[in-house]
């Protein structure tokens, strides 16, 4: 796959934007998760209002072979509703924290969506035929009087307009005391894990009334709590291996074959802290907000507040690559703490060939790093540069001294416009970037 930053064949250009244009953004419309399915044909988003919207990639236009097809709305459904736990007097938000697709096994599509407490398995299926000619009921559904039926007939399947239905097939509830932050489908396609602040549970997709607790870091005395689990993921091809990251900036790799309870890790990944960079906020900025295995399974990537790190699973004492996302914010940590931006949880993602990684930043900027050429690029998701097939211009933040033309100064950054969620198509150079309530889709220009 070609390089991400300029170079020979690679130019990112605008494709589509989904969502309202209003300046006044409803909280419920804020996108909280974005995920391509395994083929890249479907793109799912979840929002703070508990809704899931699925876009489908249309086939390429025959008239314009150079243009990839667009993503159009395929299905929309309300996944989670706000709830109230009366026993604990706690309100449970309906915000969708994560969506994960199951590998497709038949014509229907399945995905897992979760809020803070409950995971649901949804089936998204198509219906394009309808049975007509029932014996016991009329065409409009009214029941017929059985005594009036004098003959029998076989119902016939007639074509109908395509209808996409989403139905909840499983509800996995009451297994998490704390807030769920991650779900991950296992490579065995039968189990998945869910992680909250202190525990990780292993589920079977068919069984909803129980799960196995495989990690529990809750101390006997809560006063001794020093770290929480921030993210967890199953290994892409070893179904016995998973990792979880912590608020202390460490990652633990666990092998489920070693013990039923994986409290003791198989591998422990931690980079020693640089004592000269110690500050009031050292603990906050070292907290890992996302962990993702590479598609190959050889590497994993972690995101903390200021950087992205790539780790080789065979080396625990330091990452093999470190990329600074927005180092210019290091001197602004006080303000970012005051306005709560320092607690933002940015995600990161790999491209299909693991040669590039992407993550978000503020001012609707997002960053891509080419692991081979070590080049990086900053792009912006904005309505202004949203002309069809317009090439995105690289952006630059001036870090001090003279601000060059087209550069933006750190103090001018809009910290309300944050890109926390991005996704990269598993096979092609198409990316989805969630900017508050808008979903931007960019693709490379096919030369």
């Amino acid at each position, binding site marked *: 796959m070609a390089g991400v930053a300029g170079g020979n064949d690679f130019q990112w250009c605008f494709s589509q934007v989904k969502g309202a244009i209003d300046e006044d953004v409803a909280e419920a419309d804020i996108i909280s998760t974005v995920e391509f399915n395994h083929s890249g044909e479907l793109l799912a988003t979840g929002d703070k209002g508990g809704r899931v919207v699925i876009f489908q990639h249309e086939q390429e236009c025959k008239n314009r072979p150079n243009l990839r097809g667009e993503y159009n709305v395929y299905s929309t459904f309300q996944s989670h509703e706000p709830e109230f736990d009366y026993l604990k007097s*706690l309100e449970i938000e309906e915000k969708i924290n994560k969506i994960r697709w199951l590998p497709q096994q038949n014509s229907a599509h399945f995905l897992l969506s979760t809020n803070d407490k409950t995971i649901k398995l949804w089936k998204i299926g198509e219906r394009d035929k309808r049975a007509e000619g029932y014996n016991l009921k009329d065409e409009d559904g009214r029941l017929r009087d059985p005594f009036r039926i004098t003959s029998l007939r076989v119902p016939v399947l007639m074509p109908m307009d395509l209808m996409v239905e989403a139905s909840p097939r499983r509800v996995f509830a009451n297994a998490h005391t704390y807030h769920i932050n991650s779900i991950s489908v296992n490579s065995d396609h039968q189990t998945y894990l869910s992680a909250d602040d202190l525990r990780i549970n292993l589920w079977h997709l068919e069984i909803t009334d129980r799960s196995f607790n495989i990690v529990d870091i809750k101390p006997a005395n*809560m006063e001794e*709590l*020093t770290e929480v689990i921030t993210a967890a993921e199953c290994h892409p091809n070893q179904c016995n291996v998973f990792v979880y990251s912590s*608020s202390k900036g460490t990652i633990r790799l666990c092998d489920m074959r070693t013990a039923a309870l994986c409290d003791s890790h198989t591998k422990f990944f931690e980079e020693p802290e640089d004592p000269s*960079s110690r500050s*009031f906020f050292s*603990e906050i900025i070292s907290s890992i907000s996302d962990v993702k295995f590479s598609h190959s399974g050889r590497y994993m990537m972690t995101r903390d507040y200021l950087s992205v790190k790539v780790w080789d699973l065979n080396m625990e004492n330091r990452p093999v690559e470190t990329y600074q996302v927005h180092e210019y914010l290091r*001197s602004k940590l006080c303000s970012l703490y005051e306005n709560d931006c320092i607690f933002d949880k940015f995600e990161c993602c790999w491209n299909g060939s693991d040669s590039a990684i992407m993550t978000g930043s503020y001012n609707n900027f997002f960053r891509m790093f080419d692991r081979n050429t070590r080049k990086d690029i900053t792009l912006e998701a904005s309505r202004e540069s949203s002309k069809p097939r317009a090439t995105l211009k690289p952006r630059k933040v001036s870090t001090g001294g003279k601000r060059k033309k087209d550069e933006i100064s750190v103090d001018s950054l809009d910290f309300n416009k944050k890109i926390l969620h991005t996704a990269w198509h598993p096979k092609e150079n198409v990316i989805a970037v969630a900017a508050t309530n808008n979903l931007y889709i960019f693709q490379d220009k096919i030369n």
Partner: protein
Amino acid sequence: MINTTECAVDAQSLISISLRKIHNSRTQRGGIKLHKNLLVSYVLRNARQVYMNEKYAEIYRMQQYEEVMTVCNEIQELNPLDLAEDCEEQRGDCCGNGGVSEPASLCCALLPVSQLVAVQSAHMQPPSACSAPLSLQSDEVCKETEPSFYQSCCAEAYPVSNCEFSPVNNLHCNKTTVLDLDTHVVTTVENGYLHQDCCASLQQCCQGAQYSGKKRKVDFEYYISDIEEVPDFTPCKRAKFEDCSYANSEHLDTSNISNLISIFGSGFSGLVSRQADIEQALALNGQFCSKQALSSLGAMTRAIVAF
């Protein structure tokens, strides 16, 4: 050492900002976010460390100056002609640096003696309480009787009942009702540890007191960081403030945090009590930011916290 020059916001305002965040999190939709509050408590701990370091440095400098002056005056009374010059010359050195490292000066040479006297006049706790690691301190409670100094580090355990009924302590011994979200067990956590009055008045009832594992890791950390980061401090001098932590420094885990339960339950007043004491000791003017934050938040002497 925390680099405090990185931003204009000082430790005090960070403390008040952090307390406000924790307070606001109680009313946020979706329940208390454990991760965020844990991170805020780290900032709170860091800010307090820096703040206490600065305050102790200030106190030490002022106290050392006063002591030197006192000693010099006493000496002058004995032999005003011989020693006046020495005192004049050496006073600056004595007060400017750690003091006891300058034996040449008569004033400074007398410092250790004076400090030793001061220490001896105070009640020294049994060595076992001091040397035992924090996790083992339970029954061996120090018998400090220096109410004007911070003693809570020694008095680990309080009987709940005494704390509750003591008239002095009703104001300070806050109780938190904690609901364990897993077991649905409700427990009451005493956290009057941050108040010296509570400790002092409990001297008699602290002897042999047992309390199930309520450790005050908070305070010890601060002292340890003082030792590590301010090597000028004389251990003897420090003994006037807190007496038992230093010997334990190697046993204590500084990565432990001031626990969320204590922060939530103390009504935040406990977190600023020491500042109030220091304020009195130094006769400083001006409000502490945290105090202002407190008054706007309102007192919370009992809170139900769900973890």
